[in-house]
């Protein structure tokens, strides 16, 4: 879907990929399954988190994550090190998530019927919060998630990459395959779109349908 050609000049693998990853990649290419298991262990949660935010369904996110790593296993010999390994992995992850989203039945209800929820990381050490605050926080998160699912997929992806994954503009440009300037303008449009969706959106709203 995305333009896979990178606008960057070819940079040696050693320049963009750290030594540890280089070793792992070489071992995987030599047929070492244990090395691939290390890669999976290292990145599965981040990939899962990213695709879940696109799909908003735990089962689909697990399927997508599996497909991502199988694709990585097959395509690894074609990884030339023009980008960081995780940037390349992200690109595959988002493409896979979007393809899966299109294949699945549209507009699953977000009321909770048949929607499996993902496991959340353990609570922050600093938490000394009252139960009411936890409920309120969860409601806010649900409201925000529903609003994000109403955004266009492109805008949602860019927002996920920037705000959740903390990627820089040039990394987002590499992942999505668009120029850096386009990333900036799409990001600001994504923020405006989210603002329009959330204002005025009461916290009790549900039954939303994703844009696409």
């Amino acid at each position: 879907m995305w333009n896979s050609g990178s606008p960057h000049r070819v940079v040696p693998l050693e320049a963009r990929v750290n030594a540890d990853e280089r070793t792992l990649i070489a071992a995987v290419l030599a047929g070492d399954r244990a090395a691939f298991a290390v890669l999976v262990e290292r990145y599965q949660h981040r990939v899962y988190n990213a695709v879940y935010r696109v799909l908003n369904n735990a089962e689909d996110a697990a399927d997508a994550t599996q497909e991502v790593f199988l694709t990585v296993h097959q395509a690894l010999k074609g990884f030339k090190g023009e980008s960081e390994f995780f940037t390349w992995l992200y690109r595959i992850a988002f493409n896979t998530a979007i393809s899966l989203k299109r294949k699945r039945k549209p507009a699953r209800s977000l009321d909770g019927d048949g929607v499996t929820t993902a496991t959340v990381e353990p609570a922050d050490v600093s938490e000394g919060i009252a139960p009411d605050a936890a409920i309120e926080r969860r409601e806010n998160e649900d409201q925000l998630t529903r609003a994000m699912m109403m955004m266009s997929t492109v805008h949602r992806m860019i927002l996920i990459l920037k705000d959740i994954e903390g990627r820089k503009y040039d990394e987002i440009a590499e992942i999505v395959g668009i120029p850096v300037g386009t990333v900036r303008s799409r990001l600001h449009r994504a923020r405006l779109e989210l603002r329009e969706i959330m204002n005025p959106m009461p916290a009790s709203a549900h039954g939303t349908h994703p844009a696409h």
Partner: protein
Amino acid sequence: MLLDTECELLAKAVDGGLSSDEFDRFTVLVSRSPEADALFQQMLEQHRRIQALPRLTAPATLRARILANLPAPTPTPTPRRARLSKWWPAALAASVLVGAGTIAALVVTTAKPTRSTEEVARQPAALAPVESFKPNLTGPLPLATVTVAPAAPPFAVTPSVVEPPPVGVAVVMPEAPLMPAIAAPEPREENIFATGSRIELKPLKAVQVHVPVLLAMSEFHTDAGKKKLQAELNRDSTARLDLFSKNPAAYIEHLQAACRSLGASPIVEANTAERLNYPIGFTFALYLENFTAEELAALLAEATNLALAQPKSESVLGLAHIITAGVQEQKDVKELVGVEFATGKALVKVAEARPISSDTITKVAQALKKSEKSALLFTYLPTHYRTAALKSPEIRQFHEKRQERLPGTVPTLLVVR
């Protein structure tokens, strides 16, 4: 109605990627346009909420599922080219042997009896028998190669042993060159790093390792938290604390209030004061002097109490990381505060006081009592937003009010991230 370029500027401010010119335009925009200010605040709030969304973890069984679905490794087929090349070097060597034998036979039969012994000695030596080629079939087959052993370079030591060629390589020996043997170079001075240490190490019985401490800021007000803080702050002569907060501006307000409650009014560098209104993308630091470890612990406890008294304190109180101030901190405090962190020596010249009457001196001294404790708030990151100590009127004011460093106190750098 805001222009597209203005909306982009606001969005960029949310991301924290403004240049200094853009920051100036941004501050002008939000100060003149309530609409722009409201839009910025909304986008900032959404940005924080998205950042605060929980990180999801993959199901525990997913890894096993992925590995179970990996395709089985297929055996690598023998490349056609390698099969052909299996016999090629042997065939080449055999033909060379036959040719060499024929030449040798011709030379012997046609040689004139007047040839000197030296000339006979210079005849090429018989070719070494070719090692039998044993291809390696256990892995991917490399292409077999035929190499000609290079002539020995003039600086090489004459070898006493000729190493056998590697398996799979047929070697054709050239005519031995007539080169004088050159003595090996003198051995280099022994290097203890390369040749093994001569230092005899006694066996270690115990190793004490001090790792940087992580504490929850919400525990600063507890007895255990204060005790831990004091212990860490008393460990060395200077300290640095990194305080991670999702709302640094709010936490800095609490820190400032806590300072005032302990008798130290923090001086705020002018640019920093402005940036505290729109703090995204900035890291601020508070330099504290003439506080004992106990007083610092009390200050941080007070800041925590103030934060806990407000709603949504969990977004203000994160984790604290305590380390001994090192070389980088020395440089930063020198550049940004104008003080030698370790010694307390001032590096900023303060204007000498003009002579005044003794009565006035008493009144002024009473009114403007030099505070024992000093606190200075400034911008720490990004580095291109820093204000050098020498260029800031507020930092000069800090130095005017600053007292000599008291013994038993711990100068500390609090970095609020």
